[in-house]
């Protein structure tokens, strides 16, 4: 075994340990931290899927709140009218997010750049308006309330997720699954092709890639992630609301992706952690959290273009280079 491979293995073990510690931390530091941990996990799922579209395929959507809401209402309605079992609900949420993304994507995918963004914004807001106005089904702006967190029953096995910790572990497990899938997608031929589309759609087309179809596929996958996150949030907060589809909510995955780093797998997850933690910390010191948050955003955009992950990587690289030089 070469020393380099040994240190790589060491680094990998270290990062796994760090991840495990990070996951365990909320469990050890009280209920509220656990609750925030769940929110970080949900936002991270939302963002990780979203970044397959933004960071990987190069499409800036302003409508993913709509798919999030589709998932949320799918789970909510399923739970209230069909079965409270979380698994069919989550499956339905995922499918609803994907289906909504398929329909919206079909119309939007041919537009380019800003026009694509604005079209997705329009469709997201249409979903918002529909949810708001379909009061009989959705409860209007009051939202869909009273969804309960039933246990996951698999034959004789029953997983109770009503407690914070259990639900946190479920959310983290789903996040891990989401990250694993995103990781596999990124290093697959499909992921490479998406990156090619991001880098140069015209060249990709002339390389024999049906660009629109691939973009649509990425759009639908990210929609499915959004739907899953939306469904999970309904389980967490026991309500679904139209503002989930609002463009301000669609902006959140963009924010966390940029915050964490657009071009890395972990970027959105790290960005979600930073986003939730930052707001929480700032809010303890000042009512003017918007001001503080705005300033932090400025610093990150102007100072750390690769996001947090990018900055850390650059730092590590510099250290390694510094060590190698003498």
């Amino acid at each position, binding site marked *: 075994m070469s020393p380099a491979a040994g240190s790589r293995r060491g680094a990998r073990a270290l990062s796994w340990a760090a991840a495990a510690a990070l996951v365990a931390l909320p469990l050890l530091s009280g209920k509220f931290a656990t609750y925030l941990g769940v929110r970080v996990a949900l936002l991270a799922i939302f963002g990780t899927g979203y970044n397959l579209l933004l960071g990987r395929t190069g499409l800036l959507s302003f409508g993913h709140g709509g798919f999030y809401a589709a998932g949320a209402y799918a789970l909510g309605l399923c739970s209230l009218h069909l079965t409270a079992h979380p698994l069919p609900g989550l499956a339905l949420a995922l499918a609803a997010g994907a289906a909504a993304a398929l329909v919206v994507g079909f119309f939007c995918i041919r537009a380019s750049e*800003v026009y694509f963004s604005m079209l997705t914004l329009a469709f997201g807001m249409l979903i918002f308006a529909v949810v708001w106005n379909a009061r009989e089904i959705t409860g209007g702006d009051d939202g869909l309330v009273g969804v309960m967190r039933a246990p996951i029953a698999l034959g004789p096995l029953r997983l109770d997720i009503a407690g914070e910790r259990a639900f946190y572990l479920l959310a983290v497990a789903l996040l891990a699954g989401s990250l694993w899938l995103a990781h596999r997608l990124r290093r697959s031929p499909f992921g490479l092709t998406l990156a090619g589309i991001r880098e140069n759609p015209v060249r990709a087309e002339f390389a024999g890639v049906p660009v629109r179809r691939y973009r649509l596929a990425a759009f639908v996958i990210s929609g499915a992630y959004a739907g899953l996150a939306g469904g999970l949030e309904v389980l967490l907060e026991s309500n679904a609301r139209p503002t989930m589809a609002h463009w301000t909510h669609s902006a959140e995955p963009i924010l966390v992706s940029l915050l964490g780093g657009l071009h890395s797998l972990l970027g959105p997850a790290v960005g979600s952690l930073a986003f939730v933690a930052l707001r929480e910390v700032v809010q303890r010191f000042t009512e003017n959290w*918007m*001001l503080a948050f705005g300033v932090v955003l400025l610093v990150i955009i102007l100072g750390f273009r690769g996001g947090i992950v990018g900055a850390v990587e650059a730092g590590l690289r510099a250290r390694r280079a510094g060590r190698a030089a003498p």
Partner: protein
Amino acid sequence: MQSIVHVVLAGLSNGMFIWLVASGLTLIFGVLGVLNFAHGSFYMLGAYVSFSLVRALSPHFYLAMLFGPLVVCLAGWAVERWFLRAVYRLELPYQLLLTFAFVLIFDNLVKIVWGAGALHPPPGLGPLEGSVEILGRKFPIYSLFVIAVGPLVALALWALLERTWIGRIVRAAASDREMAAALGVRVPALFTGVFIFGTWLGAVGGALAVPYVGVLTPGMGESIIIEAFIVAVLGGLGSLKGAFLGALVIGVLNAFGTRFFPAFDMALIFLLMAAVLLVRPRGLFGVARS
């Protein structure tokens, strides 16, 4: 008939506000290639600063509307010179995020300076106060004034861009900034100037909105910026002609929608934008940017 005329008038006056905000947005996009989320904040700042000046300069409210936006230009200058300049070369998401950060900052600053509560301008608009009877129904003189201001601004902008040497330089820099730089145009300074001018337009919209809306709140720029975005996109990004037309269409359509198809009023402008973009992917007068 009476109803239709008044619906159209209401739509026109509303459309002219959107136009004033969208014109600055469009100009900035057309020349700098930046989508400025913070443009709504300049609208808000225009309203607040003018509001304070109205009190100080009472009863000459029009002076406040003249000077208020100029004060806001300072904010525009600072944003462009110290921050925006750094992200011209970056992708769209970074630009949006940067300007979004300023939305948060300005909203919060306004709250700190002017308070969280809504502010209400005192009455007193001199000759523009009161209403006139049109077809047996009252219509505010001030709204008529706004309806007149919109096309005047459009005309002035057109003349400025098409008929003056500054306009020629701006257009040259907009179509090819490297070429303009090679010809000796100081592009950074020009961009700063255009951004300040765009800021001024947005702030004028805000100043004019003070008596029209009657309420000032931190965050008042957020809803109008979305409408202005839609108008700018509908007309074709970078096209002032398109933005003007788009604002008229959105204003009037919204008024008709509220009156005749209330079920759709929240979705109407989005439906319209989606429909236009599906037929014309670059808006009404949009051209491809390289």
